[in-house]
């Protein structure tokens, strides 16, 4: 087995509400192997973005990390001082945010922003820094890098801005990129461009990636392994083909069946999951999914199912779906 690049164990994040701690992430464990794309999928409120933010210590108070370990290449990120953490952010770990409108500084040219990021982390000196910045503008597919270098974010379209955000995340040669809903704010045709770009850059640089999204279509095309989150807990982690063909957790299957997708015979399937995901602090005892689950039994209502590893996948369910073993 390869040593994972990023290893997250029992990550717990709580939020303080009226002096009472409420669990937002409950002992989330997963790992990202070198060169791998780990998809993180779930509905809003499942804790996908909190997981991403917790890894690079960008949680917004009152959210607070209260337990667990995070190690990158063997270094414990959770024990770093804020100053040391600044060198990790943007240096060892790049971050692509959802909204390209707000994640760039509107009053600084994109060339300057790229140069700043490169200079801070790589310390190459003026000319080399600028050369790299121009190189990155070209690599993410913007024409006339010299012209783009002097432009401000508002002069670019949404898709072009997201390309710059990607360049910013990758320009310091990080070993891991966390992409939080990188294409959600974009149109379908632009989304495919950005995904293609991320895939090309991933192949060139062999950077590991954590791709956070709610779109199962994006997961199917981009991820090598997938972690499904539900109400702040990991429901299932599986290789992507297995997840779609043979999901173990009932929630995973529910999510796949609820996504309107044309089936092979031209019809469209649409099975809903009853109810809604419990909000913060309203997680039922036992398995968080039990009120919506058709397979729930008495043990599901009282005991939280642990994450059980079985061959290449792991799931937290007492009554997993049977595999169609060929």
């Amino acid at each position, binding site marked *: 087995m390869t040593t994972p690049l990023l290893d997250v164990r029992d990550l717990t994040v709580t939020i303080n509400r009226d002096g009472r701690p409420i669990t937002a992430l409950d002992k989330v464990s997963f790992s990202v192997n070198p060169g791998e794309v780990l998809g993180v999928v779930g509905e809003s409120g499942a804790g996908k973005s909190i997981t991403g933010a917790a890894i690079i210590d960008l949680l917004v108070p009152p959210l607070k990390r209260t337990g667990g370990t995070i190690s990158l290449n063997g270094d414990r990120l959770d024990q770093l001082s804020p100053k040391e953490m600044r060198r990790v952010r943007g240096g060892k770990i790049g971050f692509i945010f959802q909204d390209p409108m707000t994640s760039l500084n509107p009053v600084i040219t994109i060339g300057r922003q790229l140069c700043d990021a490169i200079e801070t982390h790589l310390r190459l000196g003026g000319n080399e820094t600028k050369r790299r910045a121009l190189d990155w503008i070209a690599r993410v597919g913007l024409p006339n890098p010299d012209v783009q270098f002097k432009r401000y974010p508002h002069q670019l379209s949404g898709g072009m801005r997201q390309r710059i955000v990607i360049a910013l995340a990758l320009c310091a040669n990080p070993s891991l990129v966390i992409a939080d809903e990188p294409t959600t704010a974009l149109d379908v045709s632009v989304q495919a461009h950005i*995904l293609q770009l991320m895939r*090309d850059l991933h192949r060139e640089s062999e950077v590991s990636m954590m791709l956070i999204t709610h779109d199962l*279509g994006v997961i199917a095309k981009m991820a090598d392994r997938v972690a499904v989150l539900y109400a702040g807990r990991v429901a299932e982690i599986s290789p992507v083909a297995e997840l779609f063909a043979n999901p173990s957790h009932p929630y995973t299957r529910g999510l796949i069946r609820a996504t*309107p997708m044309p089936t092979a015979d031209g019809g469209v399937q649409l099975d809903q999951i009853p109810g*809604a995901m419990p909000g913060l602090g309203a997680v039922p005892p036992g398995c968080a999914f039990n009120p919506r689950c058709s397979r729930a039994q008495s043990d599901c209502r009282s005991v939280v199912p642990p994450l059980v590893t079985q061959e290449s996948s792991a799931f937290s369910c007492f009554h997993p779906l049977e595999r169609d073993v060929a």
Partner: protein
Amino acid sequence: MTSQTPFLVLDHVSKVYRRNQSLIERIRKMEEGGTKAVSDVSLVISEGETVGLVGESGCGKSTLARLVSGLMAPTQGDIVFRKDPAGKTPRLQMIFQDPYSSLNGRWTIEDIIAEPIKVHRLRRGRAAIRARVDELLVQVGLSPTDAEKYPQEFSGGQRQRISIARALAGEPQFLILDEPTSALDVSVQAQILNLLRDLQKNLGLTSLFITHNLSVVRIMADRIGVMYLGELVEEASAEQLFRKPKHPYTRLLIDAAPNMDTSDRSLHPIAGELPNPAFPPAGCRFHTRCPFAQDVCRTAAPPRKATPEGGMFRCHFDLDLSKEVKTPPLAKVKTA
């Protein structure tokens, strides 16, 4: 499908958003510029039919919804509803995208749902109105005890159910749904789509369903119109549109959305970026991104061609697009 007198006819409808002219421009009587958000759209909706409109942002689909609902007047063209024997136009209601901003947070659910009933005088007396509100709440999958609550006590999916109940309270013959599930999560979206489908079936509503999601529109609509930069580029039955699209944009749009097939992981981006709708390209508006574009596309706007199946498309060529279109994987990006 029913095909008597059409329920709603859009006849060469255009809408231009003008900017305010400066004093000097007005004195000099300079040409009034503007963005043509909807350009020469003709569409017929029959009774009991659901017509879907798809397109990317800026294609004019929401503007068209506002024109149909009468919230805005078209710059050119006519929108004609069939009048009932008494000479009245049919009642119309709208369901909006964002269930957080489309419900008044200071009103109880009862107030919200009762308002259309009171405005249209559909029930008389407090007890009758309250009974109708309860009935509607049950119809959309909520409970009558929810009537005393306020919108912020509900989740996004439940709020959208309230929006639907409010729309149904006006007993509309025609319903406009503008991205009703775009703000919702998948599992909740499936609930709302199933609810809407049941209501369509049971109430025999005629509706216009606007979305950017092709899979959603395929489930919901009988016929689908595809819009690009203000123009209706193709219109066909849902079946026909997905099986045998006639316009290259439709084909590329279908391929661009990633599906859940993990064996074929290729992506299908559409070359280039959406041009600025204020300055659409000359000739065919799609020619800057079209893999089939030839010289004629750059100069002449394609005519409106009818298909034998009753649809229409705007393309110079009669292409066979029933298969996936192979585009070069890394197409050049054009500056906006």
